[in-house]
């Protein structure tokens, strides 16, 4: 966990007092909506279809149990008893009242949480691998770097009015669990040929109406230069990014129109002005940030305790969950446990206040009080002793977060869609729910193997549909909901945008189409362990297209 200092606490508390005054002035009529809108957006407050929506930052997806209890408290006290975990590792509340928002924010501030930079044309919440610090394949904890960059860009006056929002992710070598390629700026920790650890710098990724994968503009950046190089990128974007057309304002358009090489040259030129100045990394300052990440005092334990093996043999449900939701930890005797927020018939990413409180208690008991949020809209207990897994599983199952579907067809990423969102054209959640019902048979889902479905209710692509193995995009046609289907997208280290398989299908047929695609895959795969995404790559989309449209 990162431990906040007085500066962090003062900053957050001052923002609450400032926002309380702004809300009072709006309610009294002293501020018009045009004046108030940018102020509320700077605190993550949107106006949705039915109510205000509050988005609260969860930096790099790391939560303490006390913070999770606070998420539950806000859900219960100010909302309708639940919250929605998002693809930026944040949480959203969909029924907040403006007149109560300052109190909710004050409650959040008591545990160091806030909504700053969860909206607006600034650097948004910095995301990373939800297994950061515990994954066996990482070379270094990327959260320390995410925190360093977060501190630099928080309320940075030069970067508070960028041409458009700016999303940063920090990842590490090995398997990419942070969807680096779809970020405006991605920093990937890796070793160069000399064995030094530094960053690959990628820019210009993003989805929305014009999707692009990020391009590498610097294969290796020394650690000392990370802040100055990020500064140079943001300055270059701030200077050249378009402000005349909101649809062309993201850095991806600038990088595309200028070309990655030309953009890199501009960045390098700007970098020369700042690289050896105050932004060159001060080892003492870095050490201070790093020292405030406190790691658990792990016990010396052995892997694979016999009691767990016995429990697996005794209960096939526990055994299935172990196979699906429990992952190797870098410390012997421990495990990483993913909690599914994708129950059959449920809304992806939603958790009730009761679940949040229970998860916080379980984190205290089994995970050194720490919880993570993943961009796939699930939660993680990152430090579980393997001997505790049977008991933990029973507790998680009792609160409905032990569905063994992590990474499977019913582990769907979905935006809130037209059920909540004022930008959406179509609904996403009912589509996701119906698909989870169609694939409720875990044996069937397991047989299909790793298969990611991503759903967006409009072209803004909050559900990351372009990079779903199966992507579903809602479009409105003459007042009716239709859905375009793409295949072959992926968001990992081999990121790829999906290909459209044909005309959009009506709302009522989407789950049928997914079943057709799954059936076609089973027939087409070269062998039982060929993954869906590999079959699509091998065969192309044509056989799937034929299957889907043969009877439509």
């Amino acid at each position: 966990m990162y431990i906040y200092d007085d500066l962090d606490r003062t900053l957050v508390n001052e923002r609450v007092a400032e926002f309380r005054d702004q809300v009072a002035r709006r309610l009294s009529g002293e501020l018009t909506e045009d004046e108030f809108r940018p102020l509320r957006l700077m605190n993550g407050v949107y106006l949705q279809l039915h109510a205000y929506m509050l988005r609260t930052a969860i930096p790099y997806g790391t939560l303490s149990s006390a913070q999770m209890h606070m998420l539950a408290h806000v859900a219960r006290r100010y909302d309708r008893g639940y919250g929605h975990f998002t693809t930026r590792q944040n949480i959203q509340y969909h029924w907040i009242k403006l007149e109560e928002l300052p109190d909710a924010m004050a409650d959040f501030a008591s545990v160091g949480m806030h909504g700053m930079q969860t909206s607006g044309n600034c650097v948004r919440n910095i995301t990373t691998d939800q297994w950061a610090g515990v994954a066996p394949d990482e070379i270094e904890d990327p959260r320390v770097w995410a925190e360093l960059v977060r501190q630099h860009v928080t309320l940075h006056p030069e970067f508070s009015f960028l041409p458009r929002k700016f999303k940063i992710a920090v990842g590490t070598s090995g398997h990419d669990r942070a969807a680096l390629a779809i970020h405006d700026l991605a920093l990937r920790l890796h070793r160069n040929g000399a064995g030094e650890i530094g960053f690959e710098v990628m820019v210009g990724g993003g989805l929305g109406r014009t999707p692009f994968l990020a391009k590498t503009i610097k294969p290796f950046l020394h650690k000392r230069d990370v802040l100055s190089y990020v500064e140079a990128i943001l300055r270059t974007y701030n200077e050249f990014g378009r402000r005349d057309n909101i649809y062309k304002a993201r850095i991806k358009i600038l990088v595309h129109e200028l070309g990655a090489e030309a953009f890199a040259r501009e960045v390098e030129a700007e970098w020369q002005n700042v690289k050896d100045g105050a932004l060159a990394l001060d080892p003492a300052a870095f050490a201070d940030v790093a020292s405030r990440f406190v790691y658990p005092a792990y016990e010396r334990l052995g892997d694979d305790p016999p009691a767990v093996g016995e429990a697996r043999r005794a209960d096939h449900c526990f055994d299935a969950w172990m196979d699906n939701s429990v992952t190797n930890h870098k410390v012997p005797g421990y495990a990483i446990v993913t909690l599914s927020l994708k129950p059959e018939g449920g809304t992806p990413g939603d958790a009730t206040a009761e679940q949040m409180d229970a998860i916080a208690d379980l984190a205290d008991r089994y995970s050194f009080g720490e919880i993570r949020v993943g961009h796939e809209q699930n939660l993680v207990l990152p430090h579980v002793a393997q001997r505790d897994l049977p008991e933990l599983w029973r507790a998680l199952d009792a609160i409905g977060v032990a569905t063994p579907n992590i990474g499977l067809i019913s582990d769907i990423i979905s935006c809130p869609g037209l059920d909540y969102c004022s930008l959406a054209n179509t609904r996403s959640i009912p589509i996701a729910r119906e698909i989870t019902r169609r694939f409720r048979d875990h044996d069937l889902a397991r047989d299909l193997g790793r298969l990611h479905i991503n759903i967006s209710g409009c072209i803004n692509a909050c559900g990351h549909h372009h990079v779903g193995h199966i992507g579903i995009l809602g479009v409105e046609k003459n007042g009716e909901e239709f859905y375009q289907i793409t295949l072959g997208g992926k968001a990992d280290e081999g990121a790829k945008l999906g290909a459209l398989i044909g005309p959009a299908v009506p709302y009522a047929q989407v789950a049928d189409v997914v079943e057709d695609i799954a059936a076609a895959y089973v027939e087409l795969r070269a062998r039982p362990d060929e993954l869906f995404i590999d079959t699509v790559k091998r065969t192309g989309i044509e056989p799937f297209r034929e299957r889907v449209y043969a009877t439509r």
Partner: protein
Amino acid sequence: MTSPLQQKIKIAGPVVVTANRVADGAVVYWRADGGWTTALGGAAVTTSAETARELVQAAISDGLRAVDPYVAPVKLTRDGEVRPGNLRELIRFSGPTIDLPVTFGI
């Protein structure tokens, strides 16, 4: 963003003026006698673009109580009941089409 007053209002049937209440974001409708109501049945309904524009103008003048008024389609049933005219307005009127998360019995 173009001001609603500058937007051309094209209507193909009955419409109302709707917005969200400032204090809590609740969906509200502009009444014929001025002011807002949460009851769609109490909204001023018109089939005239000119009247719709006047209603929007009046609603905008009350920026203290509601945010971003706009013209929304409605349907009139045989017995005169006012119903939302499209899916978006139906969801605004009656809430999400899915049940909200339930407590898992703990």
